[in-house]
């Protein structure tokens, strides 16, 4: 049988190309998985605020600044005046605090980089979780040890549902908690 170019293309070139493409895709998919889920995302913030110092060493309660967490959907990033409650006096000569004071005096909000983001079609509610006794760490990781905050857990629907389906596996310390709702309207409306 006379061998043709087509023969070569089908038997050698195509499988090879497919193989390389699929391998590249699979590899990239798995290698980039964490990044795509945002895990490890730790952008530089306009002010190098340290959660380790405030929440860890000084043990300030999360809710001193994140005031909305028990009251509504958003935990709320504190407004500048909350920072100034202390920093009008404390450490006001430090460069980062000078930056902060400048924002405050100019009446400008601090453009904090968003680290944790739920897609806009999902209506996550902080208060229903926190008021059920779920710790901040369950989703946000141990913020109190982070100099610079980074995302430590996946922010996918699978991640939500894993916990909703079996909260005790995810949070062994929390005894009195029911399974979370799994229906669409629980998050999407």
């Amino acid at each position, binding site marked *: 049988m*006379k*061998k043709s*170019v087509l023969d*070569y293309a089908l038997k050698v070139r195509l499988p090879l190309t497919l193989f*390389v493409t699929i391998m*590249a895709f699979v*590899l*990239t998919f798995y*290698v*980039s998985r964490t*990044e*795509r889920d*945002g895990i*490890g*995302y730790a*952008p530089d913030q306009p002010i190098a605020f340290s959660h380790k110092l405030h929440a860890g060493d000084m043990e300030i309660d999360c809710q001193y600044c994140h*005031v*909305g967490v*028990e*009251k*509504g*959907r*958003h935990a*709320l*990033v*504190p*407004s*500048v*005046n*909350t920072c100034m409650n202390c920093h009008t006096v404390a450490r006001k000569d430090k460069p980062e605090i000078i930056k902060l004071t400048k*924002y*405050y005096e100019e*009446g*400008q*909000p*601090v*453009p*904090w*980089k*968003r*680290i944790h*983001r739920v897609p806009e*079609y999902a*209506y996550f*509610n902080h*208060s*229903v979780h926190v*008021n*059920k006794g779920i710790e901040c760490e369950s989703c946000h990781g141990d913020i109190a040890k982070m100099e610079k905050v980074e995302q430590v857990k996946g922010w996918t629907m699978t991640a939500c549902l894993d916990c909703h389906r079996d909260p005790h596996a995810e949070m062994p310390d929390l005894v009195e908690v029911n399974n979370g*709702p799994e*229906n*669409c*309207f*629980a998050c*999407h*409306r």
Partner: protein
Amino acid sequence: MADSKNKSGIWKSLKEYYQDPVVLKNKTNEFMDGVTDDFDPDELSKVSRRKFLALMTASAAFTATACTDYHDKGEVIAYNDRPEGVIPGKPNYYASTCDGCAVGCGVLVKTREGRPIKLDGNPDHPVNKGKLCTKGQAGILELYDPDRLTDPLRDRRKVSWNDVDAYMVEAFAKYASEGKEIAFVTGENNSPAFGDVIAEFAKKYPTVKVYNHAAFSEKNRRSAWKKVYGSGKYPAIKWADADVIVSLDADLLGNEGDMLEFTREFAKRRDAVNGADFNRFYVVEGGMTLTGANADYRIRVNPQYHFELALLVLNQVAMNLGVTLPSNLAYRKSVTDFELAHNIKSDKVARLITDLLKNRGKSIFYVGRDKSEDLHMVANYLNEILGNSALYNFKCAHTDYSTEDISVLVSNINRGAVGAVLHVDVNPVYNYSGNTGYEEALAKVPTKVSFTLNRNETSEKCNFVLPVHHYLEAWGDIHSRENIYTLRQPVINPIFNTRQSEAAILQWADNSTGYNQDKFHKFLQNSFKKNVYAKAGTTLNFKKYWFNALHDGIVMLPANETVASINVEALGSVKTPKTNEGFTLQVRESYFVGDGKFANNGWLQETPHPVSKVTWDNYAAIAPATAAALGVENNDLIDVSADGNSISLPVMIQPGTAENTILTEAGYGRTIVGEVGLDVGFDVYKFGSEKLYSNVDVKKGSGTYDLVSTQEHHSLDDESVKDFHRIRGIIQDGTVEEYKKDPKFLKHHEHDIFSITDSVEYKGVKWAMAIDLNKCTSCSACVTSCNVENNIPVVGKDQVSRGREMSWMRIDRYYSGSPEEPVVSNQPMLCQHCDNAPCENVCPVNATNHSPDGLNQMAYNRCVGTRYCANNCPYKVRRFNFYNFRDHFADAYYQNDLTYLASNPEVTVRSRGVMEKCTFCIQKIMDAREVAIRENRDLKGDDVVTACQQACPSEAIVFGDSNDPESTVSKYREHDLGYHVLDLLNVRPNVTYIAKLRNTHSEDA
């Protein structure tokens, strides 16, 4: 060959064993000879293997590097200084006062992060008690209307407010010194602070004068009261105490008077579930209105003869009670003659008279606001004879702020006595046209000013167009009833370079340098101190009292119950109007676009007319027999001439219209307005300022005009579809008599429905709704409330004609009976959240499915738009986004930075290609759940109030937990009158309807 044997003793073949020289030679070669034969390397790609691999590696590395770069997730912008009480994500509510009409209902403005997103009634306001009509609800869109004027204009050029101030001060000083009038034209303005502003203005410019113009107002009722009782402060009526209500052409449930108050009080006496003693409602009218559709007895009379009917009733009543009437009120025809002459069946007029006589002191004969002063006086006298004044509530009487009528202004201008005309939120060039001569007169005035939100016909004729605040940006007050004083406060900073009219006038009055936004705020406080605080007799200091008043939005004033006594002599001036044989033309105010004020509001334009279901148009409604006589059909144009003005109008054959009568609605046909309202419908103000024309000339015109309605006009004559809604049990109804005799009269032909599958068990809360059709009047407040709450887009007339309107809630209207005297049944229809929902089975991607609390849920992100669900829905309540309607309607009119601010952030804005439908206000359910979790208790059914339920003026809608036997909704579900629409399909709907009972006499049953 023996010696040539393989020495190694290992061989692969006999040939090798025998040491075949070819085999031996081949053994030294890697490949066989000819393996590359027939293969030309030149034909291959020039990319070498190495190069190919290098490229692949490079691209893989490139992809990998690209992936390590995280998506930027944007920024979180927190407040710099968060205002106390504002928690982002949580709504704040502020009390204010609606400015949709003269009623001045109290509103609660829901704001999110400083922007108003929803208006609801203020529960503390005694007139509207937490409810708000369609127009009031849709007002939110006016604030975010992209056509709002942004800067002051002088001769259509942008100028600064300072230039305007300088000009006005100079001009007014000149007119004042010349003794020329400075005329303000206002609507029905009952703001005490505005009065004070004018008084302040008058100190500097004494020639100021205020005129009053409203295309539709209670001025005839007021003047009739003034004549008969000596005061224009006509009382409120204790409607709930009336056993018999006769409405003479008053659209009480529609858009007349205090519609919300009447609807609530009327519905109290229609509450079958709670065992109310039904009132009886007679409606006399020519055209079919929403009120007529809800009547127990509707008496169809050409509006020309309404005066005669009132006289007939008066004479019969007076004869029975032995009262001698003034001679000018005598009427000789008998009841039978009148009934015969007007083709009134089943002796309805006689029944009306008997009922009035039987219920003396407990009935009301109420005349429509557009009727003549004389007719109002006759009605007052009739009520007085019947002792019905016992139902008057003078404590809550309407305030009388009426000033000189605009017609006086026209003659003053023509005398050359007017220097300046300032229009405050009125549009007389449009709605005071026809033969009034206003436009021509206005042209003679040197300084013409229009305070307005949007461009309009009047502002076009003015040399100064001054943009004003929307009422949600403004301060203000309203004294609508003797005992009710309400405040208005800004809930958002002014979006544009606008001023509120009061502040601008004050600025001209004190001519101070530098205007500031707080100007009228301070003035209002002083005015409040003088008008309210000083009279309140309170021990609170002013600041506290003021903030309390602002918080509540309302102050109840002390008012005395001064009962007025009638002056019968005043009736001597009453004259019976002449009647003519020809056509009668009646002009009513549009239900939703008002007198034309709301023409640029898409939500209101698209709300279907409560009776005809026509959207985006007005038309000439005529009786089927009249249409046949004229030889016209639906959509044919007819030429209507009245008072020398001729207009072409499309025909809409409306069952129930009196013969030779045309009913049309004003408020359409705007020529200078924003994109939405432009050239929508026909301008019937061109006939003139009257509301009733007799001897009208009607001819068949040429051509047709497409009217678009959301519901097919059911053919009453077609036997195959006639009364289908009754045969299929969609509408189930009866009479009060039937119900009293046998409360289970509807249940006798119920079938056992059998299912081959097990039913799902719902633990915990299971959501359900009930709608009481006895109370529902089809006012459509629920429709608009739903539109606002759930971000429902406007689609435009063209899309409505294709059946693509998006409202989740609609009100179905069915006719039965004869075309002359149809029985109208209304039914709000929304997703029934069926337990066995047929839509769910057919969804190929499981985008719609059932939640454990009984909701038929819809996941937009899953939906691929097959529309199978809509096909399979027996209630036809699913809506498909054929376009991204925000960018499709009117060149993306509503897709701009401004209008998006009106969206509810708790509800997804749906895009093209997905299906949507009523969610039972899932966002409100989730809010209630959030509160329950915070308070560590179980979620209860009564914690949730859906948007439609919140808006319903008659409280016909009940929502809650059907698993809770104590809940209101369970009571409705189990009630003898409760039924499910199309329950034979065994879809197990979760919306229960309470069958309508009509309070007719037993012999009519």
